């Protein structure tokens, strides 16, 4: 039990997707889903710094509509999957990892919010911005990776 607790402290977040390894054929479908997803980001101008400013200044409903309707569709789909016990295409039961409450959701969440308003991008749009030709955002992405690394390095010393 003690050992388990110690491991938990070192590794406060389980890797979010504890799934089976896919071969390269299997990976192609994620590339396609990603392409469609990235295209929606650009077509709806969600990658725009201006849209994020409108959102945080409460001067446009647009981003609230996007996030709200995305949650609604996700919610209904997950309820349908559970209600009718729909299986994945490989016949597995659908598993959704439980998110445990930690102080990080407050402190880390707040820090991310500060950065979100500056960069005008959460991690997804960062990738789509680079694809749209804003090559300088590669620097922001590298810095975000560095931020992730620094968290990993010091996670055991941070309140959790």
């Amino acid at each position, binding site marked *: 039990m003690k050992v388990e607790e110690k491991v938990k402290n070192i590794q406060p977040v389980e890797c979010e*997707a504890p*799934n089976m390894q896919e071969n390269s054929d299997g990976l192609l479908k994620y590339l396609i889903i990603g392409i469609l997803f990235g295209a929606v980001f650009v077509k709806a101008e969600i990658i725009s710094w201006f849209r994020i400013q409108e959102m945080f200044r409460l001067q446009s409903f647009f981003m609230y509509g*996007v996030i709200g309707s995305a949650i609604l569709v*996700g919610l209904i789909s997950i309820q349908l*999957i559970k209600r009718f016990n729909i299986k994945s295409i490989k016949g597995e039961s659908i598993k959704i990892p439980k998110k445990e409450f930690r102080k990080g959701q407050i402190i880390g969440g707040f820090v991310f919010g500060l950065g979100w308003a500056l960069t005008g991008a959460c991690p997804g749009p960062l990738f789509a911005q680079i*694809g749209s030709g804003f090559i300088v955002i590669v620097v922001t992405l590298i810095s975000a*990776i560095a931020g992730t690394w620094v968290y990993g390095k010091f996670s055991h010393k941070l309140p959790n």
Partner: protein
Amino acid sequence: MEQIIEWISQPWPWYVAGPLIGLTVPVLLLVGNKSFGISSSLRHVCAMCVPANIPFFTYNWKKEMWNIVFVIGVLLGGFVATSFFSNPDTIVVAESTQRDLAALGITDYSRLLPVEIFSFDNLFTAKGLLFFVIGGFMVGFGTRYAGGCTSGHAIMGISSLQWPSLVATIFFMLGGFMMTHVLLEQLMKLVGF
């Protein structure tokens, strides 16, 4: 066909984009039992490239390759949409926002990101340090500390009725409001806007 291209080339309204983004949740679950989340990809890059014996980065990242492939797709999708179905007109931004931003020295709406901030000329200046380096660092550090970002917490987490994700989302928004309304003006003055 031309009409279809023209229609696709218009900016999409929120009630088209939002549901499409929401559909990613069941699609990833059904296709491979994967939970929608993007910031994890940054962790996998660390695990892949610079694990440095840190326990947080020593796991079998090969199992998470789908996530890396997915974000490469997001990048390519950005390229495809911009190159072939780009919006013909400049972005329409709320007038009140335009007024607020003009006071900060942001007036160029020719691209989706203001060129006054997001250009190579700013890379080695205080402006670049603030918006690229510090901004990016906070996004990466904050999302990992919070255990997810807008996709993993706000969309996937709230959709699956997990209250810790609601808490995280509330603090994402509070951080954003704090930066926009309290800090941004001072910080921008400080870096020379």
